[in-house]
């Protein structure tokens, strides 16, 4: 299968930008306050473009505000996860030896933890909140990034210019920040994007299962409402289709962008200058 090229990447970026703007300007764009109760069970049309739910809350407004939560949780947890992953991968790959073995051992243990069940258990004991979800996702989703960063660090470490820098006496911190990190970023960026997508979908799944934060309106919560409060049964598609579509599109946009960032090195012809 041919990998998506620049055009797909740009499409993804544009779509993502649209979602981000929507989330940022939610207060301005949304026609109503998503918490305000008006006519319940209204069909799409007129004042309510996507109708209303059983409490009379405007679904379109919910959708727009929901973008905020979903994107925040997605970005926030991905940022945390990627940060942890890069740190662990760098340290393991650069210093090797005992530190490497220890860190990889930790990675293996974390990989064994079943993630969704853990969140479910945590949610059962603690008050569910979307910060908690973001934190837990961030603390569990870093393993794949750590592995990839470690591999790349191992490679970069052996490159002559890095060896040369060690030879000249630059400190480890300097070499890591100045020589190794820039070589790692092209690998980290796509992974970051994919983690965002994964985090968004995880949050949606958890919210759908009722483990999310009921005080925040995320797309997943909207699906939960549709499921538990009669949207599915009554075939009121405007309750569940829009949020479902948004989740898919947002995750898809991020993934397209991520794939297009996995650049292939272009073949070079020797044209000496």
């Amino acid at each position, binding site marked *: 299968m041919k990998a998506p090229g620049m055009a797909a990447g740009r499409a993804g970026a544009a779509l993502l930008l649209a979602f981000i703007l929507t989330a940022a300007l939610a207060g301005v764009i949304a026609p109503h306050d998503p918490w305000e109760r008006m006519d319940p069970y209204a069909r799409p049309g007129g004042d309510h473009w996507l109708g209303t739910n059983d409490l009379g809350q405007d679904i379109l407004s919910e959708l727009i505000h929901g973008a905020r939560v979903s994107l925040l949780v997605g970005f926030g947890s991905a940022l945390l996860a990627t940060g942890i992953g890069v740190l662990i991968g760098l340290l393991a790959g650069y210093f090797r030896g005992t530190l490497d073995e220890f860190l990889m051992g930790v990675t293996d243990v974390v990989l064994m933890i079943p993630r969704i069940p853990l969140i479910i258990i945590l949610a059962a004991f603690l008050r569910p909140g979307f910060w908690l979800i973001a934190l837990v996702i961030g603390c569990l989703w870093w393993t794949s990034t750590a592995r990839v960063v470690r591999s790349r660090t191992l490679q970069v470490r052996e*490159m*002559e*210019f890095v*060896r*040369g820098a*060690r*030879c*000249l*006496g*630059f400190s480890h911190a300097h070499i890591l920040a*100045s*020589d190794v990190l*820039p070589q790692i970023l092209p690998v980290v960026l796509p992974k970051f994007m994919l983690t965002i997508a994964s985090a968004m979908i995880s949050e949606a799944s958890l919210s759908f299962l009722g483990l999310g934060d009921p005080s925040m309106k995320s797309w997943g919560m909207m699906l939960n409402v549709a499921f538990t409060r009669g949207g599915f049964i009554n075939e009121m598609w405007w309750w569940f289709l829009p949020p479902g579509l948004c989740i898919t599109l947002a995750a898809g946009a991020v993934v397209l962008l991520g794939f297009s960032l996995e650049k292939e090195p272009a073949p070079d012809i020797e044209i*000496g*200058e």
Partner: protein
Amino acid sequence: MYSGKLTVENIVKRYPAPRRGDPPAVILDGISLDLGRGETLGIMGKSGEGKTTLGLIASGLESPSSGRVTYRGRSLREMDGKRRREFRRRVQMVFQNPEASLHPARTVERALCEVLDLMGVSRSERPRKAVEALGTAGLSEEYLCRLPRQLSGGQNQRVALARALLVDPEFLVLDEPAAALDISERARLLHLLLRLQEQRSLGYLFISHDSAAVRFLSHRSVRLESGRLLERESAD
């Protein structure tokens, strides 16, 4: 008597076997050498025989499985932080692949100024010293703003050499420095190395499979085969 001497004693380097149950691969099996300032020791041998590993161990970039590296009579392992940093400066390495010797996204000027910064040279002094450094390697000022990919292999090697010289080393471990270069660039690099040795009393560990280059540059040479040193010959 030991001042300024770099030695390796009984160096053994093992790598774990690729498959379980196989014995570990012994790349270096008890190598001992010594090198003084102002002289060149050539290390010959076929590709893949461990010459590069020996070079990395001698310059402190890799640790041997057993054996020791000494500088000025002190073993590297026993050195404290200060002495170790001193060692790092005094023993520099020049690598084989010219394209990879320099950071690909940094200009020549930045690569040199980085090192000058490390040496504590003031910001105002740096441009002048950078030009000076290029001059010792036979490159004019106009190369300051170039990127490694805009330079030929020989020019890249010379910039890498200029950089290594900035920290005022006593020994250079040269790992096939001219292998990837064209004829005229190789000639130029070898002559430059010779001149620098005379001017600065540098000791060279010259690793190469090119016997003619080794003869040209070395006072003594040895051959590395199957992890052992075969013969010591003086190239007179």
